[in-house]
């Protein structure tokens, strides 16, 4: 009965407020950018269909609020994610330093089975603001390598730099994680006639 044609991936985007999570998503899904800042309240959800290695994949993208006062959606929110995207602003060191706590928070809340191999992707955003840059590529890469070779992209939501490529890698890595499911799983068992009935309510007739 297994229908292998459809795949849906849950992708969660985390990072400090203002780093450009919503903007990246909007650029990717709607090819739009606005320089006006509107804080995300709670979470936004977007859907994007992509082809990954000959498979049609639906990405269910969960854009969360970076501002603490809006982070009230509960533990269950992170459950069952296939990939987690960590975003920082290359011009603001604090947002980079906070990646550790975003990552830890995610691993605690989502509790993936194999935390060491859970797919993360790191995006250093706003690289269009060249002269203000504070976090070097090298520094970001070092952190990513240390955390288990997390893929790293330098993006600009504004100028649409590397956005497509980043999300393609996100989809690809999420799909890999999702595919693990196929490792053998025994189907439900049949009932033996002499099994004790676990519940017996009044029947018909």
């Amino acid at each position: 009965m297994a229908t292998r044609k459809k795949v849906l991936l849950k992708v969660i985007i985390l990072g400090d407020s203002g780093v450009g999570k919503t903007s990246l998503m909007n650029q990717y899904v709607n090819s739009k950018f606005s320089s006006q800042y509107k804080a995300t309240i709670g979470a936004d959800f977007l859907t994007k269909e992509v082809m990954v290695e000959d498979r049609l994949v639906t990405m269910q993208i969960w854009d969360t609020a970076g501002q603490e006062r809006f982070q009230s959606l509960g533990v269950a929110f992170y459950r069952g994610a296939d990939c987690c995207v960590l975003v920082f602003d290359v011009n603001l060191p604090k947002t980079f330093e906070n990646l550790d706590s975003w990552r830890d928070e995610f691993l605690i809340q989502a509790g993936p089975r194999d935390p060491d191999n859970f797919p993360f992707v790191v995006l250093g955003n706003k690289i269009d603001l060249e002269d203000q840059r504070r976090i070097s590529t090298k520094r970001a890469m070092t952190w990513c390598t240390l955390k288990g070779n997390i893929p790293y992209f330098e993006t600009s939501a504004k100028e649409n730099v590397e956005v497509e490529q980043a999300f393609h890698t996100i989809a690809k890595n999420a799909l890999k994680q999702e595919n693990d499911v196929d490792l053998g799983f025994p189907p439900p068992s049949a009932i033996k006639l002499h099994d004790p009935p676990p519940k017996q309510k009044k029947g018909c007739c």
Partner: protein
Amino acid sequence: MDALVQTVEDVAGASGGESENEGDGEDEDVRDGGDGGGVAAGGNEEAEEETGMEIEYDVYDVSNEAIAARRRKHAHEEATSPGWTQHDKHVFILSSAGKPIYARYGDESRLSGFFGVLQAMISFVDDNDDELQHLVAGDVTYVFYSNGPLYYVCVARTREPASHLRMLLQYVHNLVVSVLTAPYIVRLFEQRPHFDLRRMLGGTEPLIDSLIELMDSDPSYLLGAAECLRLAASVRAAVGSALQEVKISGLLYALVIADSHLVTLVRPKSRGLHPIDLLLIMNFVKASPTLRNEAADSWTPFCLPHFNDTGHLHVYSSFLASGVCLLLISTEAESFHDMQACKDRVATEITAGGHLAAITDAMASQAYSVDELGIPGLLHFLYKSVSSRQYTAPAWSAPYITGGEQRRLLRVYQDVIEKVHTVANDVKIYYQVSQSETLLAWVTSSFELYVVFGPLVPKKLAIASCNKLLRWIKSQEGTLFILNSPVW
């Protein structure tokens, strides 16, 4: 103690206007004195519903073709499609991670954002150690039901009571369990909360679609009871004994159904077949794409959630004639060929005796009409035998000709059933007058009777007519119900 009568006079859809008279003595002549007591919550909304917004197709065509056509027609809708928000009744299944599993309308993948919102709502409340049950926004009711790792959500503008929509969601859950079994669902998600359950449920959409449609048109679900084919008692008995002779190890139930009506059922002495399990089987026979052409015998693993939700049984099904299906339900996966041999014997026996012809005749000659009863003003009724979980109802007749009218009446029944069952103390008799009909509900420990008269039938006459109706049902009992189901 007085039987208790509640009168609700509906004032043309205005919100207030109701008056309640408790036990005003004039119903002493009702036989079942019982222990009256409770008062149903007042209010009669039924006159306000259906404010003219008819949908472009007849929702009441519950044929598989119509259901499939509907699914195709709306298959590409997403949350922003015009019309998507206008559907009467949405049903969604999602995992507790917020991944879509089923949407009645639209492409669940493209609706994944909407599913995310639903998950966020549920988990927000969940986080406060509370459970989101339902909420009302304007004329839309959201009802939530969660069971283990699965969430079920209904979004309806039908003004049905939330309890009924919740029941719909529970039926849908039972259907999911019938495919996967309860512990398997839990195990799948325990090990991988991100699991995409569509993989395991792929192909069952027609069954879920059909179940939802049937709940809007078939009183069986409302009553939690099965309807028997009206048939000479001798024919029913003969079919029963033909089935009783089937002796295969592992065989649990043998039954014959005729277009979602029960002909007869043979069961182990100690294990009745729960009506919900039976309704799931009937829905399966009706809507399963593999059974649709009625040609081939089929052998399907099937979990009966109220029998045992931890494992599969095996259902052998074979059509003896158009619409007439023999079902043999067994614990053994290997007995397909034995079953086939048995079917041949049963078919031969009931064909030779002329019983199969009697069944197809009974199917062709419509159910009885209310006119047959000769009770003035009687428009429709539902009678449920509580102990046997079977019910009977007349064929639809004027004024309930169109699908819309039939559904309206079902919703009136639904409303009244809700009222008489949700009060702390049993309401024995409930009397309701609206612009379009008079309804009398009478609930005892052995039966439930819901009778609809024209709008101007006074209470006294209605009660007398109910007594007459009960006498008629008693006289027809042998043809309307399975009175003694054969056992082995």
